[in-house]
């Protein structure tokens, strides 16, 4: 920027130099210890844990994409059902938990604490 000695690039520039130096140092210290390039964590062998992590991450991404259209209530119930089921509960437990927990969050956050929730398609019937 003209007329300014210490412009907006100064600070990120210093951070970048620092990160580059640290990166080199980390590579060197790992090479000295002959560390492996990458290790597969033990939980990857458990089917339930793998499915659980995938469902949590995929579900969150789906929430981001869908919530503005579908609204909190449908997405919330669907995601809770998916998560609780995949992590190991039976359907008899899963469905009531998903519905009741979503309703409780609606009451606690939307009604009691007045935190905004996206209504989506239910906008017309928002209460």
């Amino acid at each position, binding site marked *: 920027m003209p007329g300014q000695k210490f412009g907006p690039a100064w*600070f990120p520039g210093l*951070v970048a130099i620092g990160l580059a130096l640290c990166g080199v140092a980390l590579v060197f210290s790992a090479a000295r210890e002959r560390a492996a390039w990458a290790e597969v964590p033990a939980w990857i062998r458990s089917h339930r*844990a793998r499915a*659980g992590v995938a469902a949590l991450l995929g579900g969150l991404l789906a929430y981001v994409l869908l919530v503005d259209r579908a609204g909190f209530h449908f997405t919330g119930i669907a*995601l809770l059902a998916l998560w609780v089921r995949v*992590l190991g509960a039976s359907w008899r437990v899963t469905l009531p*938990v998903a519905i009741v927990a979503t309703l409780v969050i609606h009451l606690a956050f939307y009604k009691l*604490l007045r*935190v*905004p929730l996206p209504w989506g398609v239910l906008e017309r019937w928002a209460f």
Partner: protein
Amino acid sequence: MGVLSATVLAQAFALVFDPYVLWVILASAVFGLFVGAVPGLTATMATALLVPVTFFMPPVPAIASIVTATAMAIFAGDIPSCLLRMPGTPASAAYTDEAYAMTKKGQGELALGSGLWFSILGGLFGTAVLITAAPTLAEIALKFSSFEYFWLVLLGLASAVFLALGNPLKGLVSLLLGLLVASVGLDNPAGFPRFTFGNAELAGGLTLIPIMIGMFAVSEILRGATRIEQPWEMAQARIGNVLHGMWTLTKRYPWQLLRGSVLGTAIGALPGAGADIAAWMSYAVSKRFSKEPQKFGTGHVEGIIEAGASNNSALAGAWIPALVFGIPGDSITAIVIGVLYIKGLNPGPTIFMNNAPSVYAIFLVFILANLLMLPLGIAAIRAAKQMLRAPREILLPVILLFCVVGAFAINNSAFGVLLMLAFGVVGYLMEENGFPIAPAILGMVLGAMLEENFISSMIKADGRVLAFFERPIAGSLGVLTLAVLAVPLIYSLRRSRYWRRG
């Protein structure tokens, strides 16, 4: 300035002893006890989850809920240490094996009791220091210019890196990543859009609350999912009157109690290091100076007393720099500072002039929360077995939906949820690979402050670096910072030479 007048105190009492506020305190106490007692849910996570809840509350109940929940959670972390050999929060990890060994010896009641009793005493000590030190420091801080603030922030960041457990190099990487996140957006001294890629969501900078919910809560939930198949096995313990024998222990180990509280408060007040590091250090100190160090690790109560007092006192200590300078003392206050700004209680030395009643109300809440810990803590110990039986396959999803609602509510946009998800994954990967999270959070919170004070000091000094040392307090802070930076460097250089020779 911050002279405590009778009117201010009366106003503070009126703010706290209001039925609504008292209900909030009670509810957050129960919440904090539960979160603390369940392994995998931490006190920092409790704070992150409380932020959206406090969004539409008046300032005093909002802050009171966080103070109460965290104090309870740090104590309650001791409960599963005794019963499951798993720390409920990282702050109990230092003496988990010791506490479990006591339970195995049939002294579970004594271990749980000293966890509770010395948590309360330590918490009250830290609170007393907070109440006396904060206004005094504020008086001095009124005269600070950008030079002093620059060094203070840098000192905080440096101690966060070097006090973190494990590899300081990884701590430094974590800090730099945090500073990088802080430099996104228009909010810099030049007002120039950085790293925005023309995106309107990025121009305002990255909102910290969704990031913190991601790093502290989502990452823990992911970890919980990876461990879903590991069973929790509860040790049998007969629990009667947990306060039995506490007075004898207090008379027998007064120095341990005092030393733990003092060290805990100090570590808490140092930026970046909180209750977990305080407990590790106090446990080590206790063993070092004990008359019977050979008993440590076999189920000996001495270390539990010292470290248990230490982690609860650290909690209050962390509020000293947070209130006076706006520099968080631990990860919890890193979140709290954001809440203080939202509530119009801007931290800084003037907080004691502009918001004296609210600040003293917060102090009162600290005292109240520690006193309330006695009856509620006893109840929590009684209910421990039920709490620890909560099914994780239901708990984890419901908490995650909580997080989603919170991350969405901050800006009323799904972008917050995306941020939370991204930083949840980053936080999980960092911790799994030995990179501490606290320095990153501190970098995000303090990045803007560091840059602003650096640039304005440089402009004032016209680029002369020596100007940073010319004012007396700035000069001493500068030397201290450089010393903190130099010591581990020299140490690691000497160690690497030693390695090469060996």
